């Protein structure tokens, strides 16, 4: 049965590069997966881990952060800060059993509409293969038993306990 799951991916696009790349892809009528829902930020450095988690919690199956190539950031080094936060965030998500492909960091300059379109297509297929995220069951263990994260039994118990106090 052909996999008809349509993933929803939230995209944080930086105003100067990746947002304009998406504009260019549209102007050039490059067709790509309509699964990405872009949100404009002035710089990819504005995106906080909190935003990524909020998107996943609010039902997104994946989050893409897209900024200018290192060295080309309109604000000189905003994207370098993004890179640092991103690798730390991904380790956190892994501990909650969220697959790496679900949150991706992509570089696309204003003239690279095709590259961004290809990245969206690729990520859509990857997340489609992973299936829906179902944050509730996956992370919060809403239906009682802890999430089937690839952690050892003790680690997941510890994670569940830790999470319990964290949430309001």
């Amino acid at each position, binding site marked *: 049965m052909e996999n008809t799951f*349509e993933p*929803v991916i*939230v995209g944080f696009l930086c105003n*100067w590069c990746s*947002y*304009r790349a*998406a*504009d*260019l*892809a*549209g*102007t050039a*009528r*490059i*067709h*790509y*997966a*309509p*699964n990405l*829902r*872009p*949100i*404009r*930020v*002035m*710089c990819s*450095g*504005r*995106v*906080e881990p*909190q*935003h990524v988690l*909020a*998107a996943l*919690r*609010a*039902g*997104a199956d994946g989050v893409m952060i897209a900024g200018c190539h290192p*060295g*080309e950031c*309109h*604000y*000189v*080094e*905003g994207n370098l*800060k993004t890179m640092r*936060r991103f690798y730390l965030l991904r380790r956190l998500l892994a501990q909650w059993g969220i697959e790496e492909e679900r949150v991706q960091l992509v570089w696309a*300059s*204003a*003239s690279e509409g095709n590259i961004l*379109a290809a990245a969206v297509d690729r990520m859509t297929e990857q997340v489609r293969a992973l299936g829906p995220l179902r*944050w*509730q069951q996956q992370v919060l263990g809403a239906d009682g038993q802890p999430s089937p994260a690839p952690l050892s039994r003790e680690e997941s118990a510890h994670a569940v306990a830790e999470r319990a106090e964290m949430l309001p």
Partner: protein
Amino acid sequence: MTERVGVYVCHCGSNIAGTVDVADVARWAGEQANVAIARDYKFMCSSLGQELIAADIREKGLTRVVVAACSPHMHEKTFRNTCAQAGLNPYLFEMANIREHDSWATKDREAATLKAKALVKGAIERVVHHQPLEPLPVFINPNTLVVGGGIAGITAALELANAGHHVYLVEREPSIGGRMAQLDKTFPTLDCAACILTPRMVEVGQHEHITLFTYSEVEQVSGYVGNFTVTVRKRARHVDESLCTGCGICEEKCPKRVIDEGFGAGLGYRKAIYRPFPQAVPKYPVIDVANCTFFQRGKCKACQIVCPTGAINYDQQDEVLQIQVGNIILATGHVLFDPRRIPQYGYGRLANVFTSLEFERMVNAAGPTEGKIVLRDGVTPPRSVAIVHCVGSRDQNYHEYCSKVCCMYSLKFAHLIHERVPDAEVYNFYIDMRTPGKGYEEFYHRLLREGTHFVRGRVAEVTDAARLPGEEGKLIVQVEDTLIGKQRRIPVDMVILSPAMEAHADSREIAQRFGLGCDFNGFFTERHPKLDPVATMTEGLFIAGTCQGPKDIPESVTQGAAAAARVAGLIKQGTVMMEPVRAHIEEALCSGCRICNTLCPYNAIVFHADRGVSEVVTALCQGCGTCVAACPSQAITGAHFTNQQIMAEIEGVLWDVRPAELVEA
């Protein structure tokens, strides 16, 4: 949070309506919370469309407006003005990009409509949290910095100076004049380059509104439009400019002669103390420390001894000075592709293969051969000359682009050879003869009339391995004459290569220093290739001439004047309205951890040790939001991109997949 939001879904003719069910989106939007009115219309950006919004604001008391149409980069300004004219603060407005990001990017009508709803919902949830903001007026310093003293930089400087604005012109070489000063004649009018350029250079040298820094480089730039602080390093010439009369005796008497790799393109010689060319502006010579016997071995003070005014000063030091300017024009020019990268053309190995720049110096009356066209032995005139087009241009292995001017100057060379060596046979090897300018095609016809042999074919190799009779001792140009479909071997005495125009090797560093982008080939990136070629993504920073891409002299002059006009416009305004998108630190929440201080590339965050808190200098802040994201205690808010607004937009775009229990939170 109850607001009266007006939602307007644009058809954009069929651009959006062709893929997105705009009526359905409008109907659906009408049912969303906080939405007072929702309409769809053929062309929202038309005056009628804008009138719709203005009328609704006045009659229905709208407190927020959402327009779902094209990219904000296209019409955000238009609709903000509409709101302002109707009495609504322009920042209480948000656009949903359902054209470039949606209808144009997919054929799937159902998915496009769903995506449109998500983007509209995101915009509605966001706009509810918008706060009224006022743009910040910023004072424009009327002084301007022009970097690069070629024809583009000279034109820009003169246009501004003649308008009464002060200009600082910084040039890396000892004299202004740039690439054009090295040329002899210019196409298609055969004006002598020096005759039309030198008066401009003199005008720059004497202009009371132009401060000229030659043999100098910009080391550092900080600040923003209207308020740039520029650090210029004026390299030591070891000649005191206040004493030097420019008499040139030092150059005459200096015993050390070296090959002139700079202005002379490696074909002529110059002394260790030299002026690049007689009409140099300024007229002060420069000591080439690397080749000067005194600086290398401490002996020989010939120049100091003969100097009538004692202007030679060996221990002169570099000067570093700071200047304040409002705008910057970059006109840093280009360099020539080095044909040694194509070994089969033999440049550097076969004596009588010359580059175009070497030939320009040769035919120049002030050049090493006083304008006589001769072979590398400096004596014998060539009986036959081959001029090779597209050397390193239109070639994936080197530069894919066409360098625009080589066809024309190659024709010029053919003419000069016919004129000075009348019985010489001249061959031009081309792929396409490109003569796009005014009077250019006519010039080509003139060369046909003068008997030039035009062979359509890209030269495969230049070799001295003779094979057929009559090839001994000659350079053989092997090429396929594509119009007769046969391979030909044409023996000539001299070969001139017309190499591609290339960006400076350090163009990427220069771009980073001034904060603008470069394309794949190293040419500076303009704000818009068609509609805004002289501006850049950074306000107050403009580009002109070949630093933006290959072009001929008329275009470089045009761009120089255009950049000057843009700067004059800003200066005339006196102040310019800056986007109010800035960061602000809530002092009560700031724990003084100073994480934000080092984050800011514009050093816009200062720390008050007494109060133990940091503060954002609003004027310096560019609004990127990196500090907002990094602040552990969320003490920094980013106007127009607050966390509340972003969180609302996230939840809005996920309206159809949001888990139930989150909805009422």
